[in-house]
């Protein structure tokens, strides 16, 4: 049920989840790609920083060595002229050699313009070397633009034991030439992130040192393609490259992406499950609410389709009938029905549609209508059932069927004919108190196979015989021990001699007591029909004239004399006789009038029927006079009819075969037996 509600939105739901997932993955991918590249570059930078330190160290060592050599050679040289120092510089293959005294003033140099300058006020670059006048033995500057010569120079200095220091300066090319042999192989096995490499090159693009093999050294540097991150830095005049395959970062990114995808799937799945559960709970609550309302409505429609006013035919004295249906919580397919089929025949039926819920209720309405239409229009009982069955079997795509028991009572013959279509056989309580079960022989349930003949069975009825019809909701009611109510518990209640109404109520009460707190799971449907036999009946036709008034009263009085009718009941009846008779005599313009008096014993009832062939006039449609008016305004007209209606227990009018037929029913007290 819930799934059905969700089915249409499942594609949308999945679509939304997939979109959310892909979007999240795209953002994650972009972020991770950025982070991966950033991390790769960071690694390369750190590697380069490391290599830069090593290069500087190597280059400084090489130049310091040259400065120390110059210091040694200067102590041996007596000539510290410009030319001599230039010669020394050439010898040492450096570009400049200068000597400063203990005050920091250049006293000798390979270039004449330096001499006499004081490092204290020459420039910041020169001032750095003043540390050599104190405790520092050697000092190296990195390659940097020289303020004096206007190009990049690298200067190193060493202290002189006789005071001052010796400084050596090199151009970039010179630095390279001097230091390149120290750098060969410096970056062997230096891999970045396990895959990249650092390459130190000469200016011409020749490889000085790479991570890979010594073999590649001396070869021309091959710049990698776009699939590598490349970082270049110039350190002490040497171009240094860091290479790292982008795929390394990508591989890490992909791994992270896979992990986060898995996590996201788990999270989304849980979120979907949670939201789904919440929605399902909400929706199912809504559906249940609506469904409960619909079912309640279906149940009330179904119930209202069943005859529920008792007695249903107050003027029918030949029988006594009561039915009740106690529905289970879920709407079921039980039903009952009864109606006259012709003047002296009466049909009673009970049925149970297979299944429950609205489909069963709908099929029940159809089955009830079809049965009634067939029973009342087809004279042969068996043919009527066969026709109803065929009509139910056709267009029965849902394969619903109806178990049913249908009986027809012939009042005059005192005979019950019945057809059982797969239903529980009813009980028959005989007038002498014995209870028997009617024959179990039955045909198939209605609506199963079309064109099946149904056989009727017959049994004679005596006055006071009681027929009790029920559905399996009675016998299959269970108690806490899972026992069924069963026929053994039912039969004694039927035998107990209740009236039809009393019997149905007693059975329901017993079933309820038996079931205890176990909820009723099936409809409990019962009909009790008591055959009263042909009633005592007197009938006389009178001339509709003034004498009739006394004659009719005498006739009724005479008939009532035999019944030990109590005085006030007789008075009521006689008032009614007076009112109706005078009405017919004065207003109907009929020549004759017939009065029929019938009485039955169980329950004691008198029925008076007035038949005249006069003007068609329904007294029940006559408006009652206003009984609240004062004496001056009161008219006497219509008062008689009002009194009749109030004095009798039932009044019924019919226009039958050109006659006004007015029936009055008066119940007699129970303790009076005729």
């Amino acid at each position, binding site marked *: 049920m819930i799934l059905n509600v969700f089915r249409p939105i499942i594609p949308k739901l999945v679509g939304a989840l997939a979109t959310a997932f892909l979007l999240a993955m795209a953002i994650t991918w972009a972020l991770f790609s950025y982070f991966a590249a950033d991390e790769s570059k960071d690694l390369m930078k750190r590697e380069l920083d490391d290599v830069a330190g090593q290069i500087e160290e190597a280059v400084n060592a090489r130049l310091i060595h040259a400065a120390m050599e110059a210091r040694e050679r200067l102590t041996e040289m007596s000539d510290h002229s410009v030319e001599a120092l230039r010669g020394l510089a050439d010898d040492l293959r450096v570009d400049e050699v200068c000597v400063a005294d203990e005050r920091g003033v250049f006293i000798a140099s390979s270039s004449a313009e330096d001499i006499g300058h004081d490092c204290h006020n020459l420039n910041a670059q020169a001032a750095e070397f003043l540390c050599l006048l104190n405790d520092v033995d050697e000092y190296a500057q990195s390659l940097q633009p020289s303020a004096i010569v206007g190009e990049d120079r690298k200067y190193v200095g060493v202290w002189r034991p006789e005071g001052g220091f010796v400084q050596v300066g090199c151009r970039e090319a010179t630095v390279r030439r001097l230091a390149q042999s120290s750098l060969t192989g410096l970056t062997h096995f230096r891999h970045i992130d396990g895959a990249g490499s650092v390459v130190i090159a000469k200016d011409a693009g020749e490889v000085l040192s790479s991570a890979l093999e010594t073999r590649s050294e001396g070869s021309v540097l091959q710049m990698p393609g776009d699939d590598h991150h490349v970082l270049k830095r110039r350190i002490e005049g040497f171009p240094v490259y860091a290479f790292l395959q982008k795929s390394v970062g990508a591989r890490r990114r992909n791994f992270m992406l896979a992990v986060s995808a898995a996590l996201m799937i788990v999270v989304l799945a849980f979120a979907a499950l949670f939201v789904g559960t919440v929605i399902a709970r909400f929706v199912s609550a809504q559906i249940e609410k609506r469904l409960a309302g619909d079912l309640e409505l279906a149940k009330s429609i179904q119930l209202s389709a069943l005859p529920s006013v008792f007695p249903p035919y107050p003027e029918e004295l030949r029988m006594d009938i009561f039915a009740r249906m106690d529905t289970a919580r879920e709407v079921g397919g039980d039903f009952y029905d009864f109606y006259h089929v012709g003047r002296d025949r009466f049909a009673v039926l009970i049925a149970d549609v297979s299944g429950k819920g609205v489909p069963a209720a709908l099929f029940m309405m159809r089955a009830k209508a079809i049965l009634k239409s067939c029973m009342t229009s087809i004279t042969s009982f068996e043919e009527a059932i066969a026709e109803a069955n065929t009509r139910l079997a056709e267009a029965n795509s849902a394969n619903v069927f109806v178990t049913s028991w249908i009986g027809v009572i012939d009042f005059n013959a005192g005979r019950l004919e019945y057809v059982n279509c797969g239903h529980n056989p009813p009980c028959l309580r005989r007038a002498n108190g014995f209870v028997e079960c009617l024959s179990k022989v039955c045909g198939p349930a209605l609506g199963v196979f079309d064109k099946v003949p149904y056989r009727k069975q017959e049994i004679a009825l005596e006055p006071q015989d009681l027929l009790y019809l029920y559905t399996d909701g009675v016998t299959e009611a269970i108690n806490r021990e899972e026992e069924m109510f069963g026929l053994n518990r039912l039969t004694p209640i039927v035998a107990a001699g209740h009236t039809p109404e009393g019997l149905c109520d007693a059975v329901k009460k017993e079933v309820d007591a038996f079931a205890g707190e176990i909820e009723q799971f099936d409809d409990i449907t019962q009909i009790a029909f008591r055959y009263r036999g042909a009633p005592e009946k007197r009938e006389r036709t009178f001339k509709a004239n003034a004498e009739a*008034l*006394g004659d009719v*009263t005498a006739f009724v009085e005479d008939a009532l004399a035999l019944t030990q009718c109590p*005085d*006030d009941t007789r*008075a*009521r009846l*006689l*008032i009614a006789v*007076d*009112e109706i*008779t*005078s009405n017919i005599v004065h207003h109907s313009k009929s020549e004759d009038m017939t009065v029929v008096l019938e009485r039955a014993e169980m329950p004691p009832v008198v029925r008076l029927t007035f038949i005249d062939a006069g003007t068609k006039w329904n007294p029940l449609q006559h408006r009652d006079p*206003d*009984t*609240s*008016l*004062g*004496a*001056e305004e*009161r008219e*006497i007209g219509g*008062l*008689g009819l*009002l*009194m009749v209606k*109030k*004095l009798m227990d039932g009044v019924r009018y019919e226009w039958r075969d050109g006659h006004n037929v007015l029936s009055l029913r008066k119940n007699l007290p129970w303790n009076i037996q005729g």
Partner: protein
Amino acid sequence: MEIKKTKDGSSLKLTVSGRLDTLTAPQLESSLQLEGVTELVFDLTDLEYVSSAGLRVFLGAQKKMMLQGNMELVGVKPIVREVLDMTGFSAFFTIK
């Protein structure tokens, strides 16, 4: 139906027994001479029942007596009382 008339000056007492219906009501109506009567009493102790025809006579008498005096119903049996109640007549009859 039998009617017994007792006249005492301006008061008239009618004792009605039996049935007051379409057949007998004209008889009661004709025995109602109300000239000069200021107190009219119907003794209904032995009245079996009354139909609308009888009520009509009572109503006529009541209308007259409202102009010239009082009218009373005495000895009303339950069934008669019931008829008077259901028709609304007990509202303007003096019943004792």
